[in-house]
């Protein structure tokens, strides 16, 4: 195996000058003064790793952790402050598509211009030109100045060039969201084809599923330093551990803030018309322990405490609890009608809702709870609207995830005779589609 990319003890410092001397006037004025306030920012610190030929390396991490800096260093857009970056082979960066396209020129001219920008010869571009055009599906428009292209057409052409120039190394930075579903699938297939040809790929993605399914090895980078490196599943696992720890802490503090708001009677995401007031909403695990991160298939319990006024204390009341996804779409709503739960002397009560085998898939969710009068349920006595959060991480990360979306549905794959397919056959069938 040969190394094609090698980073040796690489650090990259960015200097952020708050009062930047952009003109001669400023320089003269500030000649004897200290040069504004300079802030140093280490985007990458003493990072070393290498990529072998034919390997697909995934890089994960939070925004601003240094992922893109690595790609920029490999593609030589920026130079390291210290350390050494060695790259053997031609690189096609899919960092920003269509950089260098000129609006006045036709698609044809731009293909050649873009190719030469990536350092490929005219003869080579002539050889692959038809392929590029066919891939972009822009046969009819190839001689039209690209200022008349739609943005989708523009991106398709750009992607077609970048991926068809047949580079030794492909750098991908979250650009797979090009065009419609069909085109995306085509791009994806092309990348898979790339891997089969033994090309080297470095992929930066927030989609852990993509990293796990496409990469041979992964790196988790955090604050400019490698936190974990090696087997994808291990790295993703380590990364998720941190993500969920942070998520849990955040959910807890949000929960506390929500509680405080309730105590202060703040109407932010809550309205009270009197009668019955929700005292607290707790999200608990199967053992009734406070919990904010669940796995698909766990049991989840929501416990509501409420207080009733004198005049309603004897009437039946209703409860509702809804779960919304991160976009605010209601995924599920559970109602509980006509309950006579209030205990007369204390005017307080508790109601618990248990979700058995929580069928939600990975993501973060919010929870709303409300108490309603049973008769003419126009407006609730009290409601907590999307005030409580929890998140779900996918089932065990070493099981290949075969479901995506919001909910997990019971399903099975059958062949033509109606015999159930084993997991591997199902995968093969899906890939063949």
């Amino acid at each position, binding site marked *: 195996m040969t190394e094609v990319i090698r980073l040796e003890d690489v650090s990259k410092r960015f200097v952020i000058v708050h009062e930047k001397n952009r*003109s001669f006037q400023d320089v003269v004025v500030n000649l004897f003064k200290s040069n504004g306030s300079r802030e140093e920012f280490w985007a990458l610190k003493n990072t070393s790793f290498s990529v072998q030929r034919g390997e697909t390396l995934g890089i994960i991490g939070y925004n601003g952790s240094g992922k893109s800096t690595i790609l920029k260093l490999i593609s030589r857009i920026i130079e390291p402050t210290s350390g050494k970056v060695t790259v053997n082979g031609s690189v096609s960066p899919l960092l*920003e598509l269509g950089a260098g396209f000129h609006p006045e020129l036709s698609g044809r001219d731009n293909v050649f211009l873009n190719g*030469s920008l990536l350092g490929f010869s005219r003869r080579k571009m002539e050889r692959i030109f038809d392929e590029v055009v066919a891939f972009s599906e822009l046969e009819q428009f190839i001689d039209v100045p690209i200022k008349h292209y739609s943005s989708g057409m523009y991106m398709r052409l750009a992607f077609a060039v970048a991926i068809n120039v047949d580079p030794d190394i492909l750098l991908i930075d979250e650009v797979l969201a090009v065009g419609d579903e069909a085109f995306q699938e085509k791009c994806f297939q092309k990348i898979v084809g790339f891997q089969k040809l033994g090309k080297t790929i470095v992929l930066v993605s927030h989609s852990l599923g993509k990293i796990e399914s496409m990469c041979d090895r992964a790196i988790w980078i955090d604050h400019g330093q490698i936190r974990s490196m090696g087997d994808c599943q291990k790295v993703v696992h380590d990364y998720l551990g941190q993500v969920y720890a942070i998520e849990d802490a955040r959910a807890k503090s949000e929960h506390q803030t929500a509680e405080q708001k309730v105590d202060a009677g703040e109407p932010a995401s809550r309205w009270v018309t009197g009668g019955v007031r929700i005292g607290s909403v707790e999200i608990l695990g199967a053992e009734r322990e406070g919990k904010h991160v669940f796995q698909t298939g766990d049991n989840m319990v929501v416990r509501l405490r409420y207080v009733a006024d004198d005049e309603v204390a004897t009437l039946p009341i209703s409860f509702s609890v809804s779960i919304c996804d991160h976009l605010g779409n209601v995924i599920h709503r559970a109602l509980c009608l006509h309950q006579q739960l209030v205990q007369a002397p204390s005017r307080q009560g508790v109601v618990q809702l248990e979700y058995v085998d929580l069928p939600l898939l990975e993501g973060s969710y919010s929870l709303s709870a409300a108490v309603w009068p049973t008769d003419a349920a126009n407006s609730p006595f009290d409601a907590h609207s999307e005030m409580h959060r929890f998140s779900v991480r996918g089932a065990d990360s070493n099981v290949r995830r075969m479901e995506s979306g919001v909910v997990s549905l019971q399903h099975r794959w059958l062949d033509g005779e109606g015999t159930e397919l084993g997991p591997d056959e199902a995968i093969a069938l899906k890939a063949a589609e």
Partner: protein
Amino acid sequence: MLTRLTELFKYRELVRNLVIRDLKVRYKSSFLGFVWSLLNPLLMMLVFTVVFTVMMPNKSIEKFPVFLLTAILPWNWCAASINGGIGSIVGNANLIKKVYFPREILPASVVLSNMVNYLLALIVLFAMLLAFGVEIQPMFAFLPILIFIQMIFLLGLAFFVSALNVSFRDTEVITEVGIMAWFFLTPVFYDIHDLFPQYERLMYILNPMASFISTYRLVLLQGAGPEPYFLLRTLATSLIVFALGYAFFIRQSRLFGEEL
């Protein structure tokens, strides 16, 4: 240094494409297109001729229109290279931040596309020379050498101003004034030999464009070969300007990816 050169060779296609792009874009949207680039120096020539021979009688210079044109064309190449060179890095920030390629290609392609312009304009110059009864002389063979040396000089300048403009955006404004001053301090519409001898000497030392224009005139109008010593000195100056400009450019270019 050697790796840099082999890399530049690898990217020769890009130089070619950028030059073609420059020319195409320049001539595509305007009605008269390519004719403009020829018309511009001719109009300039006409104005100067009217001012200096009709309105202000000037008998000392023969064939004044071609005398002017032999200077206007290389001067325009110089001015356009600098004006275009200044913005060549800043104006292509989106490119520089997204793709790696040898950055010197950008200012270089500006100089080269203006050189193509100049070469095309030379056709008009030759037509004018013939119209004014100047014969094509064997010494015209010096022309490619002169053009080559001027190219080296202009590359050096373009490298310098394009890199300087990244850290000091005022370069653009200052150069505007500078070019105008330079135009008057260059013997375009007058003969350098008409100056007081000490100024003539000073101008040759300080202003390489004066040397170029005098040599162009010597070759084209008088059919004489330039003095070898003079030509070598001009070459040396150009190489120094090139080396300094390029060195400055390379030093600064490391920061282009983040400064822009």
